[in-house]
């Protein structure tokens, strides 16, 4: 499949996911929508630069996250230092929301990319400009923190939906 068609297919199947995850980063759905449109437009215009070394979705996420962070493509500053995703919905389970808010911004970002955007460790590493080991370690810590918080809530009688 050529890259243009693959991009269109990715866009149509994953648009809502892109917009929703990016909305947690930009705190604004309209801005998130603009970022998604811009990210796919950049990917489409630069599709000849995609060499197939990673996943196409990971490549688009990298562009989108950089746009969301307001970074130029050549910036060496890690994305994880610029993006601070917010808990998406007020209706989120209070215990879970509180646990997520308690995470460091970097761990929160990795959690969002792993569990909301459904990216692999490698894709997160590529998108954020860090090593796979950094992602793995951060997620392991995050899971521990979230698990402890949720277990504590459960033990105190709170429900986990």
């Amino acid at each position, binding site marked *: 499949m050529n890259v243009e068609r693959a991009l269109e297919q990715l866009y149509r199947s994953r648009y809502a996911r892109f917009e929703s995850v990016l909305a947690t980063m930009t705190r604004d759905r309209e801005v998130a929508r603009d970022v998604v449109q811009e990210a796919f437009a950049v990917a489409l215009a630069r599709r000849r630069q995609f060499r197939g070394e990673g996943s196409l979705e990971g490549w688009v996420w990298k562009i989108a996250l950089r746009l969301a962070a307001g970074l130029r493509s050549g910036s060496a500053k890690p994305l994880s230092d610029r993006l601070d995703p917010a808990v998406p919905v007020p209706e989120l389970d209070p215990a879970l929301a509180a646990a997520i808010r308690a995470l460091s911004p970097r761990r929160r970002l990795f*959690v969002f990319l792993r569990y909301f955007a459904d990216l692999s460790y490698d894709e997160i590493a590529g998108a954020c400009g860090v090593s796979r080991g950094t992602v793995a370690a951060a997620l392991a810590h995050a899971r521990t923190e979230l698990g402890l918080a949720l277990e504590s809530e459960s033990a105190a009688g709170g429900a986990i939906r």
Partner: protein
Amino acid sequence: MSDRLKPLLAAELAAFEAAAGEPDWTDVRRKARKFAARRLALRAGTAAVAAVFAVLAATPALGLRGHLVHLFADSEPAPAHVVTEFAQLDVAAPAGMAPGVIAAQARDVLEVPLSTGEDAVLWVAPTRSGGFCLGLSTSGRGSGGGGGCDRDRLGRFSPGLVIPGPVGPEGTVLKPPIVIDGHTLVPQAVQVEIRYQDGDVADTPVVWVSDPINAGFFVYEVPRRHWDAGHRPSILVLEDGDGHELARSKSYLDQMFRAMSAAGVDSNTGAPAEAIPSQRRELIAITTEQGSREALWVAPRRGGGRCHWLTSDGLPGREQGCPPPSTEPHPDIAAGLLSGSAPILLEGEVGEGVATLELHYRDGDVQRLKAVEGFVLGEIPSRHWPRGRRLDELVALDAEGREISRRPFSTETPGTYPCADPIELDAGVKSCP
């Protein structure tokens, strides 16, 4: 813990996703075209870019959405050697075919980076009749390049193929780049979509050049993976800002590639690609006034017919041809001048019954060339370069010396013969009268 966490988060996000808007791929494509056009414009220089965005910003209601406009008057003038090349288009043109190019007004229109590390540079100059000529270099601004003219504004959508590098005997391109360039007169044109034989698709923006050119131009390098048969460009589609088709050039590039294959030259023997070089024979060889050895070769043509070509000191020369077999009777005199710089050669074919071709000069001299298997080759001596002494007529004779036919031979076109004192013709261009 992750087993519990993932469904929890996924469930929350599912609710959040429900609030997402509708995807709009058309908008993405439009933005991508603008982005690509902006990158292209950035290559064309800061002044041009400023002009472009000034126009884009000021005229959104004039159908210029996604349209890249290049203000001709504000563009950088073409370098002197390019101006000279434009002016020379008029110099040696046959009667009635001169484009009337205003070479001094040639401007840079596009610069596109190539895989070679060089830039493709497109220059455009207006013609006196309201048309334009264009020239393309694939080696940056310091080099010249080929081009053409649309003197009478007839080319609604006119793509071309540029292969500056060597071509192997089987028509294989040996060195990048392969470039598609061209122009359109359709004002709504925003991009050219390149559709490949293997289903791949690419696009390149059209840059609209303002008055007095009023035409759109494009330059696109064909990637290496699309050089071979089965993967080559098959159709070019001219599109507006919404992706609607305005015009197409179907199978044009295939024809071009076939022509390119026919034009391929074996660098070892100088033989055309269609020739069978192992069966080549040297028919005629002469030593010129300057001491070079000019030779005419023939070889069977693959699929029938015969190829012929010239070599100069063993290197590929200035002429080659591989006409397919024909039942049409061959004209008695089908020879012409290879002119412009020394040596000036008269070369070509003659009819079956022709044994000798006489070259009658205006000063009364007569030079005789012996026909060999229907070919002649000779040098026009330098004493016959000046006006009043030039070749005036060709006469074909049979083996008994009887005249078979004669043909007047006008040689007053400027630039045909070298001279000591070129005269100025146009835009500072000098040529021999």
